[in-house]
């Protein structure tokens, strides 16, 4: 498991959004995002940067404290120590007061045409 220095997220909200600043948890500890632009109201795009500087046994985006958050898609770029950054794209999901979203993924294996 690499040490995660920072990660950037771009979250596209669908019809319903909390319109409140989200936070994340790493290894069960709650952290605020260090940079935030845009919004997570309906049809908005939110760009976030987190700087955990730690080894992520778990990394989750915390769901809203009330209501539902329709996420159309997320793009995450991980900046890990000692290796180039890598980017993943996630599809749609709905979060609520009872759910968090897993956002930690190891570097995907390389796929080539042969």
């Amino acid at each position, binding site marked *: 498991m690499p040490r995660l220095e920072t990660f950037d997220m771009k979250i596209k909200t669908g019809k319903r959004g909390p319109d409140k600043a989200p936070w994340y948890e790493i290894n069960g500890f709650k952290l605020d995002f260090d940079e935030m632009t845009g919004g997570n109201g309906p049809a908005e795009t939110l760009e976030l940067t987190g700087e955990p500087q730690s080894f992520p046994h778990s990394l989750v985006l915390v769901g809203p404290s009330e209501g539902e958050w329709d996420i159309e898609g997320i793009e995450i770029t991980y900046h890990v120590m000692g290796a180039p950054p890598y980017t993943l794209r996630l599809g*749609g999901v709905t979060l609520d007061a009872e759910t968090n979203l897993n956002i930690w993924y190891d570097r995907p294996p390389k796929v*080539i045409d042969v």
Partner: protein
Amino acid sequence: MGSWFSKVFEKKKLEESAATAVVPEAIETDEAPESALPLPRKVISAPILADADSTTAPEGGIAIKAKLDEAKDTVTFLFDRQLLDGYSCWCADRKAAEASSPLALAVFDAGGAGTVLVYSSTLAVTRDGTGREGLEDYARRIGGVLRESLLAGVEAATPDFLEGMPSEEEFRALLQEVIDTEINPGIASHSGVITLNRVRGNTAYITMGGGCQGCAASSITLRSGIETSFRNVAPKLGALLDETDHEAGANPYFTDLPAGMGV
């Protein structure tokens, strides 16, 4: 012969304590009781989206992608067609490939292969550790061998492959007995449990639960322990697929591999 599980998951003997347990007395206060802690949230996953297909024009009409796993020294070849329908073919060595899969035999004869698994539209090769070429170079070389073989009409399985194949019910009974008598008693000390979900053809689908779910050592338990035990009782077993959602594991036994415990 002691099983892999009894050696690895050694139960610790509990020593009887001579001392009686001490139960603290409840302290009465006038303070109101603490409000209940919020229930832990469920962690869910969103689907991972693949990048736009960047396949170049398929050579000879056969499109092949290779997924490289450097950690396991394995290449999984993904074809644009079914290689084997309804069954999977596991070849532990060249001799097994000679008996059951001409396509796998071509891979062994090209050099460098340790094991080959043909399943659905994929063919996975784990190297034998003798070659010096990088994994990507190896993938390109073997990809060429596979394309040539398929264009020449080489089959993924011999006509005799299905001869003597146990029924799904027979597979299920054999594997369930091993789970009940060897595997689950062995991993119970780590709060682990294995469930056989189903058998399709000769492919088995399992879920690793309890302390196994999300455990950093689960892949070792699967390959070194479960797969070995299964193949000992069911030599015609093909692919063994883990359907566990390891990212949802709430209490994995190992969150990271202990020192010296490699794949």
